[in-house]
């Protein structure tokens, strides 16, 4: 045990009977075929043991430091702060190896899978950042890797497809539905149902059946833990607002987790407004509200019709193009602890360009949603934004949109 560890992947727990949350208020659960239930139990047990195991922690901490490059900087964005009229700090997950926060989770889960004796790793990916992170760790640890990616996303995120293949992963294009993240996730779950005995499924966000939402949060809260210590060190106070983009919501929950108990810190999740909330073509189930539903194994805020068919999301950013969000986000919304807003495609692209020229940082289109919201606020005292990833992968998409 080492309760004082800086990377501490241990959220506060209320009861030793429920060491990993299966439910967040009415949300969460395990809505999967019975075939997978033993694997979920096995994963939960393995995680309970691993996170308190000094060897696992030491391996993970070493890789986070020497391989990923953690801690990532907390950068006071000078010109952005001038433009906003208040200090704005960027938590630079774009400087994490592979270019996004996704590596934090991939390292933790693939290391865990290796401990569990799994030989084969599968993952879904939207923007390709989670796929690249998973393929990277599989190369590092010598594991077989299959990545499911919607055909639409293999097109708009081609550089990441090329990176994954170069890393030795098999990229499996998914040609169903809207050919994006939802279908890629469904395809990965079907693979897992079929190969569950040899395979670990590295879910890339805080979605899916328990224990995934809690497991992925625990592995991502390194973002918030670092950022909280860094802002206290730099400013001697906590931020007034913590802002992050939300697709499934892993960078957001990873950042929020460290601040949830700081009641004066406002938590803001920024979803994909797509072509506008009123058009129905968006990816903002938390913002819109409405009846909860079940998608990919857990109950949460989702986009569905009145009969329960899942509705296709829409976003210019592949990573936010998802009709669900993590169950803990839905609970944070309902309890009023966090609020969720939406930013349109056009606003995100404008912010993508503006931040690039203001700060010399090309943010991921996903992250650009959070930055667009910050740029649009004229109030506030001190904002901390999770710069969840870099935007090199998005150049073709943004330049294409610009010409259209």
């Amino acid at each position, binding site marked *: 045990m080492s309760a004082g560890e800086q990377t501490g992947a241990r959220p506060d727990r209320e009861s030793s009977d429920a060491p990993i949350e299966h439910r967040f208020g009415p949300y969460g*659960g*395990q*809505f*999967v*075929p*019975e*075939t*997978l*239930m*033993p*694997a979920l139990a096995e994963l939960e047990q393995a995680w309970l043991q691993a996170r308190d195991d000094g060897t696992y922690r030491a391996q993970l901490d070493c890789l986070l430091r020497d391989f990923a490059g953690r801690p990532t900087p907390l950068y006071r964005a000078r010109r952005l702060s001038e433009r906003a009229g208040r200090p704005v700090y960027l938590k630079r997950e774009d400087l994490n190896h592979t270019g996004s926060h996704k590596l934090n989770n991939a390292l933790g889960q693939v290391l865990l899978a290796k401990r569990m004796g799994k030989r084969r790793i599968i993952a879904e990916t939207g923007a390709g950042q989670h796929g690249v992170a998973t393929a990277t760790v599989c190369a590092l640890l010598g594991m077989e890797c299959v990545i499911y990616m919607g055909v639409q996303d293999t097109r708009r995120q081609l550089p990441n497809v090329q990176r994954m293949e170069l890393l030795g992963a098999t990229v499996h294009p998914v040609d*169903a*539905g809207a050919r994006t993240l*939802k279908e890629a996730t*469904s395809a990965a*779950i*079907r693979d897992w*149902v*079929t*190969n*569950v*005995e040899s395979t670990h499924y590295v879910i890339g966000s805080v979605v899916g059946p328990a224990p995934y939402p809690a497991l992925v949060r625990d592995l991502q809260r390194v973002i918030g833990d670092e950022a909280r210590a860094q802002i206290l060190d730099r400013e001697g106070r906590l931020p007034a607002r913590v802002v992050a983009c939300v697709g499934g919501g892993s960078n957001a929950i990873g950042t929020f987790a460290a601040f949830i108990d700081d009641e004066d810190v406002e938590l803001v999740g920024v979803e994909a407004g797509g072509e506008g909330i009123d058009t129905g073509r968006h990816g903002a189930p938390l913002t819109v509200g409405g*009846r909860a*539903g*079940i*998608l*990919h*194994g857990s*109950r949460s805020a*989702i986009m*569905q019709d*009145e*009969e*329960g*068919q*899942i509705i296709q999301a829409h976003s210019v950013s592949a990573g936010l193009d998802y009709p669900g969000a993590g169950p803990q986000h839905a609970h944070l919304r309902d309890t009023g602890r966090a609020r969720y807003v939406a930013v349109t495609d056009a606003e995100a692209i404008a912010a993508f360009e503006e931040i690039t020229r203001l700060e010399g940082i090309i943010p991921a289109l996903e992250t650009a949603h959070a930055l667009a919201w910050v740029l649009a606020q004229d109030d506030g005292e001190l904002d901390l934004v999770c710069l969840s990833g870099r935007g090199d992968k998005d150049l073709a998409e943004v330049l294409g949109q610009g010409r259209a």
Partner: protein
Amino acid sequence: MSGVRTTGAERIAESFAGTSKRAALMPYLMGGFPTLEESVRIGQACVEGGADVLELGMPYSDPLADGPVIHAAGTEALQAGANVAGVLEVARALADSVPVVLMCYANMVYAPGVEAFVERLDQSGACGLIVPDLPQAESAEVLAACDRRDLALVPLVAPTTTTESLALIGARARGFLYTVSVVGTTGERRALGERFAEVVARAKACTDVPVALGFGISTPAQAVQAADAGADGVIVGTRLVRAAGEGDDPAVAVGLVVSELAAGLAPTDQRSAS
């Protein structure tokens, strides 16, 4: 309906007990594929071909337990306009001639509210409900609602299911125990899963209701193997959905395959069943 109302579980039990075949034949059809009208004809063809229990699929946008053939059929059914009301009409049209069990993913059961969904299902004349993404640990609310209306909530077990879970699931099974023969999704396979006989034996040991084997059974020979292993029922899905998509007349095509399966399952002293 007249006289004393028979519960869904009782109707299903009568079908298992009354079949002359070596195991009850349980065809699956996707509601609304290729159309709702054709679904009714396909269901009737199944009954004429020897179906003892009919499994009716509700098309869903994200069917996690299904392989590509049933997934594609569901997508096509939705594109052709199938909805809950339409598929329940198919159930109603068939319910007098055969016990119908609806297979429907969890989100569609919860969307209108569990109670409301189960009430509509009951009114359609169906006998039971299978929810492939509702494991035992999550099933209490749906089970209670089904029990109140005498509908059988049929649970699934898989080769991976632990002995402890099997006991829990088997004790709460209504109608029959849907025993998944393979670790995987629905779909035709060249051979039954290596462990299918063991899977059947484990299932039978944990429950008093009939054990039906499904996922991956497509030929008369495989159906006979399942019966020989002790399965009380044999579920055939993908093979029939494929037939519905291939033939000029889907009902004729499906009926032909069902008849072959029924003939295969006929007692050994009979040449064929019709």
